[in-house]
């Protein structure tokens, strides 16, 4: 009997005085890919932040990769979590290659692995382009290249399909395939219901901060 990768019970989050998540329950088993859908402002991005252990819940309990949310224990598992947010996490003044290499060196991974990942996502020819002068889609591919390079056990994608062309969709497919094979898990937020349905095992719907 393996423990779930993600287990949230009755999670609540408020920003200032405003509740954003109210009594959210979520369980993701190893090998599972779950989609999240819902209207604007429903709390999808916040949910991803909680699962990424970056947002402390104000109420409820949760475990991610075995670490209890809201405790220092989460530091232990963060390296196994991969997050691609709304905005790509790139340094605009560094080239695409330099961005990946910087991440590699911080994470203790070889520079060769970074270059390999860059080529895998089809950006080898643009390696020396400053990230700030690359398109949003290219920056997104860097985020995904990072996932390929670091092989996280928990993959979190926010607005996964935004800015990605048809060609690049195979990148997400490969990431999810490899994650499943490793018995990891993934949580994907998307407004594109069609593409989402194709890639996930089930869809969680969120409305006004609560799972429905």
């Amino acid at each position, binding site marked *: 009997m393996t423990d779930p990768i993600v287990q949230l019970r009755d999670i609540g989050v408020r920003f200032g005085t405003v509740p954003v998540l109210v009594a959210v329950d979520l369980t993701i088993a190893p090998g599972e890919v779950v989609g999240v859908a819902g209207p604007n402002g429903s709390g999808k991005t916040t949910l991803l*932040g909680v699962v*990424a252990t*970056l*947002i*402390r819940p104000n109420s409820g309990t949760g475990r991610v990769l075995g670490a209890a949310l809201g405790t220092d224990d989460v*530091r232990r598992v*963060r*390296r196994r*979590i*991969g*997050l691609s*947010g*709304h*905005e*790509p*996490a*790139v*340094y605009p*003044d*560094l080239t695409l290659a*330099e961005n990946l290499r*910087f*991440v590699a*060196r*911080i*994470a*203790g991974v070889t520079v060769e692995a970074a270059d390999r990942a860059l080529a895998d996502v089809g950006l080898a020819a643009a390696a020396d382009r*400053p990230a700030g002068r690359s398109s949003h889609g290219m920056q997104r591919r860097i985020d995904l290249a*990072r996932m390929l390079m670091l092989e996280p056990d928990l993959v979190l994608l926010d607005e996964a399909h935004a800015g990605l062309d048809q060609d690049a969709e195979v990148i997400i497919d490969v990431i999810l395939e490899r994650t499943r094979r490793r018995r990891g898990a993934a949580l994907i937020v998307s407004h594109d219901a069609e593409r989402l349905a194709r890639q996930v095992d089930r869809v969680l719907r969120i409305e006004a901060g609560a799972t429905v």
Partner: protein
Amino acid sequence: MSSFWRQALQVAKRDLLVEGRAGEGVGIVLPFGALAVFVVPLATSGSASLLADLAAPVYWLVTLLFGMQLALRQTATETVPQRRLLVLLGLDPVARFVGRTLSAWVLLIGLQLVLIPLVVLFYEPEPVPTPALMLPALALYALGLAMLGTLAGDLTVGLRTRTALAPMLAAPLAVPLVMGASQSLISISRGEGILTWTLLLVATDLALSVAGVVTARPLEETAT
């Protein structure tokens, strides 16, 4: 190399690389500081003896205020996605503090060195007998400002009023640094010893490093 120092040096290297490309420090803050040095005499009677007396105070004031601007430069300020990425990568928050301080230190020393000949040119202060004695004080002063600037920057990340708030928080706490450095110069010009002031600078830098290490982890959470 231990992973702590590898991470710290990577962060410092990244900051300096970004500065080399974006040029906010060298291209904007430095000339702005030079301009400030140049403008002050225009607000005085222009008497040579007054300017000679003003040279050191103006130098310390400009290095303090514009040094803070350097340490807090926008191009070095990380966005929320960047900070989140680093947290998830397991970047040691203390290594991050050390790396940021190192890069700020390099830039601040640059600022200080460039302003010296300008102040000498425009204010013609009394020559100092053994100027080389000032080097340790300048290095310690720059290090303290670098740490203070990094702390103030991290403390105010994401706040709308950051541009004015961060230097305002740092300035009163920078007094021991300004004191140590400026009084060292005065002592050297009089041929007196600078041990007391050097010790003050060392003590302040030590205190700031302790503060930096102790607050590194709590500060990490402000970014997410």
